[in-house]
């Protein structure tokens, strides 16, 4: 595949921003690790050898009876009794961290929240759950939530902005007035009211926030389209008889892509912040799920356990800084006037 010179230039500009490149690699590494959270932090062993057979408890739930136990429920591999059973006829390979985000450590030496120890590297929260495991799962859900929200709202916002800008006139006028009214709706109250009617989960929150987050893209895309729709190459395409949808897609949209891509990393950071904020207030993800906002809230409630607030703060701060640095580098890459010497 041939990289067009303009993209080559963008790539060069991006790589020249050292901070952005490093941020991108660090972020990608962290994200990749977090994607495989189940094999890094889990309360089930990765692999069990028992009585001449292999078991993979991370993927398949085995009843305790498979290992010679008494219950038909799933085996609790942290139970001394089960460990003894398995060790007698085989062995287990554990993940790096022997806790999942919702595993309660009953063997704490001090009352929860307990301070960092060899078992719980960053301590436990006030319900005895491991902070490191919660951070890894929380990071993953935050980034996935942000990415999904950004991509879907970009698709929605770009399409609406494109139609408004391309057709202008009455369509544009009505669209803009609708956005002004819609933007005036208090999102937070709406979420609070909705939270009392339904139990918000990942998808509910995504849908509710999507109702409002698409509007940011409309402005930039609409402006690009208003500018481009009277350019000669668009007129030339009309003179050729090209259909409107095709003109939008093939001729005008590529011009709006730059503005959209520049906007995206900042929307991503914004979405993550909003989710964290909702979790902090208690209107976010359902109780018990791994969430950075909930960790912060616990930090606030347990000021005598600074490891809670501090670890939450650092993870959020580092994640957002990385995203903003990447965003800056992307912006530089698409800036036609940026020159390096």
């Amino acid at each position, binding site marked *: 595949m041939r990289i067009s010179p303009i993209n080559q230039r963008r790539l060069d500009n991006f790589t020249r921003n050292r901070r952005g490149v490093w941020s991108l690699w660090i972020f990608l590494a962290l994200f990749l690790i977090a994607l495989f959270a189940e094999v890094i932090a889990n309360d089930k062993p990765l692999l069990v050898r028992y009585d001449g057979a292999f078991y993979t408890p991370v993927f398949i739930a085995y009843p305790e009876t498979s290992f010679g136990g008494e219950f038909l429920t799933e085996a609790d591999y942290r139970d001394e009794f089960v460990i003894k059973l398995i060790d007698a006829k085989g062995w287990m390979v554990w993940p790096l961290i022997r806790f999942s985000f919702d595993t309660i450590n009953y063997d704490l030496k001090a009352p929860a929240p307990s301070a960092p120890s060899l078992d719980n590297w960053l301590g436990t929260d006030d319900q005895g759950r491991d902070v490191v495991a919660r951070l890894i799962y929380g990071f993953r859900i935050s980034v996935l939530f942000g990415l999904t929200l950004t991509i879907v709202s970009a698709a929605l916002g770009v399409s609406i902005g494109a139609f408004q800008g391309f057709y202008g006139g009455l369509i544009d006028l009505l669209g803009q007035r609708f956005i002004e009214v819609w933007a005036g709706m208090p999102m937070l109250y709406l979420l609070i009211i909705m939270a009392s009617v339904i139990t918000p989960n990942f998808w509910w929150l995504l849908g509710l926030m999507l109702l409002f987050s698409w509007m940011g893209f409309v402005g930039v895309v609409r402006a690009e389209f208003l500018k481009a729709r009277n350019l000669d190459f668009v007129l030339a395409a009309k003179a050729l*008889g090209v259909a409107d949808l095709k003109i939008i897609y093939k001729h005008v949209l590529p011009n709006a892509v730059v503005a959209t891509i520049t906007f995206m990393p900042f929307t991503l950071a914004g979405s993550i912040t909003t989710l964290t904020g909702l979790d902090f207030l208690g209107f976010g993800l359902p109780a018990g799920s791994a969430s950075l906002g909930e960790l912060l809230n616990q930090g606030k409630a347990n000021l005598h356990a600074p490891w809670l607030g501090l670890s939450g703060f650092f993870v959020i701060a580092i994640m957002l800084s990385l995203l903003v640095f990447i965003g800056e580098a992307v912006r530089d890459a698409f800036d036609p006037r940026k020159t390096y010497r």
Partner: protein
Amino acid sequence: MSKFLEISGLHASFGEGDTEVKAVRNASLGIDKGETHALVGESGSGKSVTALSIMQLLPYPLAHHSGGSIKFQGQELMGAPARTMRDIRGNRIAMIFQEPLTSLNPLHSIEKQISEVLGLHKTLNPTQTRERVMELLSVVGLEEATTRLNALPHEFSGGQQQRVMIAMALANDPDLLIADEPTTALDVTIQAQVLKLLKDLQAEFQMAMLLITHDLGIVRHMADTVSVMSDGEIVEQGDMKVVFETPKHAYTQHLLGAEPKGHPDPAKKNASEVAATGDVKVWFPIRKGVIRRTVGHIKAVDGITLAVRQGHTLGVVGESGSGKSTLGRALIRLEKSTGEVTFEGRSIQALNKNDMRPLRRQMQIVFQDPFGSLSPRLSVRQIVEEGLLVHDIGGDFDERRKIVADVLDEVGLEASMMNRYPHEFSGGQRQRIAIARALVLKPKFIVLDEPTSALDMSVQAQIVDLLRDLQKNHDLAYLFISHDLKVIRAMSHDILVMRQGRVVEQGSADSIFDNPQDPYTKALMAAAFDLKADDTGVVNV
């Protein structure tokens, strides 16, 4: 004796190392007091960089001079301290730029802008300053502006703005005036007036003038001596008459031979009508008030009847804002209009989008700006091929590729260029791509909307030749829109002179060029061919 301004061995380049662009190489020239020296060359030849070097106004340190000297009245300007340069700029050396609207600050009144120059270099009290501003405005022929001192630049026309710029330049009685394409952005009739003004002022104040232009007509009219620049080097220099009559360097000969000339090939007398209009009107409503009531109309095209016949070119000529382009677009229904519009005898005014589509194949348009009319993100093949896809011509990929290759070959480009992107081509090549895009559908009628205006002179001539050849080979009908009478003459069989949306004069090219009837047409011809300013008052702003 050394000259008044003497440039010797000037080098100017931008950037360092691999990316260094040598804009000016070893340029030398001299101007005496009271002399006009013209610097001629095509775009990118280093004319403006030379002028800005004199003022030391290049973007240093990105730009730098690797050698040379610029002596002004014996004083070295190269590397002179900033304080000295500030003293010289606007005071002893003044400059006029190409685009008057962007050179004037839109938020300051003209009085403020002119008095600023005075205040920087002279100590005058407010009354004296105002008197001087009035005096300057009357010197540049803007007497009526003395009552409008508080007016902002946009309230003046292009010609008037350029006069204000000249007044600013003259404010401190400069010894040297640098005019960088001072009339390129103006209409021909206004251009003639501004050139006359510059010439008169120069004679009156005995200034030295460095005139930068790409227009050989202006050089012939204005200059005493001339330097021809090409690709950063001065290739020929000397007395204007000598250089123009006996050019020695190949490039000068090329430049002089490159003006579009000749006449179109005679076309069949009884050819059938391809496109025609009857009393066509395009009125844009002016809306005012809260409920956007229509209070009046801008009559861009106001009742024009014309017919373009097969194999013929109808030249539409007029100054900017006369409605030429709108007329062209209305003819192929890119602009809403009222009145009769027919194509091959069939009325197309009432057709909807789907009914229009098959007709679009027959009628095409080529635009003025070769940079804006090609999608920057599509390759040449994709651009030319688009029409084929829309109209389902040429079955599969390979067949379409072959058609594109043929049409590129026909417009004088190589088929191997089809995978490149527009920005890799020069202005003239891009215009050829735009023509190829129109031609690939084998249309019967092409609207050419100022297709040569954004191009260098020698490239213009090539495009004119190409268009004439294509017309002959395909029996095409052209509606050729231009403000440039030379190009119109080289292209058209029939002519329509437009002004403010109406027809001023209409007829065969020969009769209009040889024997114009309307005073406006006469003034236009005089301004375009002899750079003679009109004094009858027909074109006054």
